[in-house]
């Protein structure tokens, strides 16, 4: 379900490490390749600490990448200086997670919306006024709200202002950093519908950062699942949700509640907690947690392997590239018993 083959945003071997105490490196993002096509929604899913937000912030150069390359509309943005970053922000915008913190408490909605029009598009005052009116209308706010301060708006209204600001300068990529996670459940659906409507109207490409699988299922065309800085599975949303392949994806999906009668779910549980991102070895990041683990998993970090044409996962064990295919349930229970892990593993 791809709107276009034109790639608006591409990262190649994107890497971000932080120096931590003792001269060691915390690897937040490790070799991430994504390609976002015009008009589509690519969701990056993962738990906290998976590096999904860091990818988003690298793309906007809010965080300086340590390595790799980022291209926006065919142009590498890695070398952009502080001044030419403004040209990047005409093409890529962001909707922040917390609408309250992302609005200047001393600026009215009008002032917030005039800024990108004045600075990016160099509009005259009367043009700006007209455009600001159109923008609040597009995001479903009454024109009277133009004179309000953020503290005079509800959470959902604030996020609408944040969205209006993001689309004001007509970017073709919008990064949505968990745009609904700080909102009431009742408002969430409205904001998602608004985002989908705007995407259709304005032909926007969304990079959608989220940990909420229900939301992702609702909005995403394609999904990339991140774990400890790397993408472990990627593909069309239907395929990933219907046939999750990587053990981490399967654990993630089976942990989410399903509101449906009579669906008996096969659960896959991981052992223990997320491992340390500090100086990780060249191995599968799931080593020590995975019920399907093979000795070969510790030898080399597995690359993404094709599941089918568009769908790929970084697990040679599941995909039968290793000696054994998916082992049976008995074998698994024996394994977990032998390891004496805190959590049992069942398939």
């Amino acid at each position, binding site marked *: 379900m791809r709107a276009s083959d034109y790639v608006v945003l591409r990262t190649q071997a994107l890497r971000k490490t932080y120096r931590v105490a003792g001269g060691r490196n915390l690897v937040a993002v490790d070799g991430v390749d994504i390609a976002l096509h015009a008009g589509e929604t690519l969701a990056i899913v993962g738990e906290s600490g998976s590096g999904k937000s860091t990818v988003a912030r690298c793309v*906007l150069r*809010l965080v300086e990448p340590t390595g790799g390359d980022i291209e926006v509309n065919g142009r590498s943005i890695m070398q952009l200086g*502080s*001044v030419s*970053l*403004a040209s990047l*922000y*005409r093409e890529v*915008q*962001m909707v*922040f*997670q*917390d609408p309250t*913190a*992302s*609005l*200047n*408490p*001393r600026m009215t909605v009008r002032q917030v919306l005039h*800024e*990108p029009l*004045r*600075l*990016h598009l160099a509009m005259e005052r009367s043009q700006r006024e007209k455009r600001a009116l159109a923008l609040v209308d597009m995001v*479903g*706010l*009454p024109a*009277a709200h133009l*004179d*309000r*301060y953020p*503290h*005079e708006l*509800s959470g*959902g*209204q604030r996020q*609408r202002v*944040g969205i209006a*600001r993001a689309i*004001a*300068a007509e970017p073709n990529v919008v990064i949505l950093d968990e745009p609904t996670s700080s909102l009431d459940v*009742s*408002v969430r659906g*409205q904001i998602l519908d608004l985002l989908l409507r705007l995407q259709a109207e304005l032909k926007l490409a969304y990079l959608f950062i989220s940990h909420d699988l229900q939301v992702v299922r609702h909005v995403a065309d394609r999904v990339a699942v991140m774990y400890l800085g790397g993408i472990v599975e990627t593909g069309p949303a239907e395929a990933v949700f219907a046939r999750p392949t990587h053990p981490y994806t399967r654990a993630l999906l089976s942990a989410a509640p399903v509101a449906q009668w009579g669906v008996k779910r096969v659960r896959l549980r991981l052992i223990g907690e997320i491992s340390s991102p500090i100086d990780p070895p060249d191995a599968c990041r799931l080593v020590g947690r995975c019920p399907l683990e093979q000795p070969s998993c510790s030898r080399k970090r597995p690359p993404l392997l094709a599941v089918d044409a568009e769908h790929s996962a970084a697990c040679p064990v599941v995909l039968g590239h290793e000696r054994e295919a998916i082992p049976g349930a008995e074998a698994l229970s024996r394994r977990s018993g032998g390891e004496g892990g805190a959590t049992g593993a069942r398939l």
Partner: protein
Amino acid sequence: MSAPHILESVAGHDATADTPTAPPSPAVQVAVPTRRRAPLSWSMRIGLAVLVFYCAVALLSLVWTPFDPLSPGVGEGYMPPSREFLLGTDRLGSDILSRIMAGARYDLGITLVAVTIALVVGTILGTIAGYYGGTVDIVISRCVEVFQAFPGLLFAMLVVKAVGPGVLNIILVMSFIGIPDYLRLSRAEIRSRRNWPYAEAARMVGNRSWQVAFRHLLPNSAGPLLAFTSINAAFVALVTASLGFLGLGLDPNTPEWGSMIARGQDGVMTGEWWLSFFPGLAILGMTGAFYLLGDALSDLTDPRRRR
């Protein structure tokens, strides 16, 4: 009204409270806040009123005082307050009321100018240091810390002794003493906000980094800064008077409140209390007003605290 209906109207309020599709229930109308300015607090009113009064007196003294504040012998020496000399006369027979009125020019003028210079210079440096961090921050902060090694009054005494007396010198010294405080405060304020999403958002709508620092972050620090400015003004007024009291900085005959107290201090023992009492009261009134104003300003400048 059925349950889904209620949900709908609540949800509708969030998006389009004013469109005809959303039924205007009373709850919705209450929930919509209106913009109104809070009435000024009492500490604000009193502080402002007193300071306006001092300014008025200072201006008035330029054109009119009951007697010439500088000429001795307009009355007898040590005359107690009376009809003719409302606040009495000093040792040389000068009218104390006239001298206090003229003194407002010195004490208030020095304070206001010195504080303004310190506020502007300190805040600009602090904002730069706080927003850009790194080497810039280290250089600025270290340079300023040198001045902070000395206690304020001692530093002022040393410098005034070295560069000589004069209103301009006192102003410069007093503003120099203030700069590190404004710098530290604004630096901390900006640092705590520079990684806020709204600072990043400001960058993303096309602002240059200095615009983010000075137009977006600094105005949000105005409350604490203005409140501190007012309280700092009280301190500056006190140090200015202290310099006068110690006989530093200005010509001893200048009608400055601190030096007036010094001239009258012997009288406190022998019963001529009015010589030092009234200039002291003038200082107390001014510093108190600055404190009151500072307290009230922090409330007023924060839009979230307007009701």
